[in-house]
């Protein structure tokens, strides 16, 4: 009975790994073929590469201006995620601790806005910011990510801060600490679990975003990685081998983060969705 059950569960696990293998075949095919020449890829896309050469990677690296796209993406993602987290934590705190009418109005508006698709906002946004001559700078894009990221950030921090007993801050106030100082030295350190959740969700969102940067950043030297990938594919559309190397290179940075943070990422998604 017991042995039977063990065999059965072994079979099931084996089947699941097989399923996963099939599920990830698209990745495997792209990796395999990124080491071949385009000619070899056309002739036998399913065979293993006979030699491992990085020529395609070098050519993709140069032709898609990988470094520039990577740096732009890094700067934009890094700064926007940081400001989203800090400012939403502060606003979340304000909304929980001060029951002013303005606060509840803005909190309500932020909640409601989360149901609003970006598509309803993009045309007037491009129009307004274009008229003011504010397009085509990273600063505008950062500001927009802050505006779009804040509702979910505030909502998440709000839920968490509600659970923190006020007494902790009260004693600090009695000793004459200012609100700002109390927030940064007492409340902020307690918010670490929420940081990780937001960090993960916002990094995945902003790093991979295509539509917003494509509308805001117009000059080639501003391009983020998804924009470089797009240009690269539109201009080299028949030379598949370097294209596949380019795809792999754009995936690698997130993959590295994932390998380090996988537990938190999965936890982040769960908490982000269930709230």
């Amino acid at each position: 009975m017991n042995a039977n059950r063990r065999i059965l569960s072994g079979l099931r696990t084996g089947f699941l790994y097989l399923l996963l293998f099939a599920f990830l075949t698209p990745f495997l095919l792209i990796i395999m073929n990124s080491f071949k020449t385009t000619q070899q890829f056309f002739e036998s896309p399913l065979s293993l590469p006979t030699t491992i050469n990085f020529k395609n990677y070098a050519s993709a690296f140069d032709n898609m201006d990988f470094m520039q796209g990577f740096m732009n993406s890094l700067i934009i993602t890094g700064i926007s995620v940081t400001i989203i987290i800090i400012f939403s934590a502060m606003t979340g705190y304000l909304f929980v601790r001060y029951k002013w009418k303005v606060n509840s109005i803005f909190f309500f508006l932020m909640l409601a806005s989360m149901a609003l698709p970006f598509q309803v906002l993009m045309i007037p946004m491009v129009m307004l910011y274009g008229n003011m001559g504010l397009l085509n700078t990273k600063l505008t894009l950062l500001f927009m990510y802050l505006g779009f990221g804040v509702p979910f950030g505030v909502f998440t921090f709000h839920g968490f801060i509600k659970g923190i007993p006020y007494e902790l801050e009260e004693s600090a106030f009695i000793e004459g600490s200012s609100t700002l100082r109390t927030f940064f030295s007492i409340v902020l350190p307690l918010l670490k679990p929420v940081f990780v959740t937001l960090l993960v969700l916002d990094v995945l969102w902003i790093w991979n975003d295509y539509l917003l940067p494509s509308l805001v950043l117009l000059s080639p030297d501003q391009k983020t990685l998804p924009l470089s990938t797009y240009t690269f594919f539109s201009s080299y559309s028949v030379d598949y081998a370097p294209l596949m190397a380019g795809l792999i290179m754009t995936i690698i940075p997130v993959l590295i983060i994932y390998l380090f943070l996988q537990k938190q990422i999965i936890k982040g998604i769960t908490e982000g969705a269930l709230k």
Partner: protein
Amino acid sequence: MNKKLSLKNAGTFLVFGGPSIFAFAAVVIIPFIVGLYLTFTNWDVRTGDSSLIGFTNYLEVFRDKVFLQQLWFTLKYVFFTVVIANVFAFFIALALTRGGRGEQWLRTGFFTPNLVGGIVLGYLWQTLFSQVLPYLGAKYGWELFQTSWLTNTGTAFWALIIATAWQLVGYLMIIYIAGFTGVPNDVLEAASIDGAGRTSVIRRIILPLTVPAIVICIFISLSRSFLTYDINLALTKGGPFNSTELATYHIVQKAFLSNQYGVGQAEAVVLFAVVAIIALTQSYLLKKLEVES
């Protein structure tokens, strides 16, 4: 704590709320209002002229056969994507919440497509559909793959669904797993003592108790697939002959390439209304099925 907002503590409001509320208002509230206004004008980008024209833009939206066709195309695409992604995610999650060995690894693996943005994902599948599958078709004589799926409207439609669902499955799986872990163990044990089979446990216990997770998953997959843009752009570019343009793709083209901001915005508002109605109806209907554990 419950002090009234006054000049004295207005500073607190500005310091703590200022930056985020300002950005939120400038990026969300004002564009939303301007956007609604825009749908009632015939704003022209080149001349900057604009005057109120009432509901003309909306009438144009409903008279535009191409947009209506694409909206219908989008609805079909959303329906199949949501069903396929959720069914797969549900059963994979079910198989991965038994505490078996290697579960963590399997979960990690199924989630990986979510690390990839829509553009990269679209090109990845484009390479497969336009090169690898036709190769297989030619080599083994499989008729299904003889020509690239992307050159035919019907098959390009399924290519879009496969690529989107492939990404969504891992994300939804995570949420379903969280839902399943919330099903109390004693209920499951009691059922197995009473001799309930696997299927009836799923149908009578797990399904009703995970309704909240199902509501969330359907909502997420609905709103994500309704707004698909970059997968569409990278995979089919709307082709062949604009037959696979999803609603968002159409709106972007209309507004930014043919400069019809007013009509484009009216289409966006209509799309938003469609999404909202469907999402609210589904969560209302499903919530009725919810039970207390």
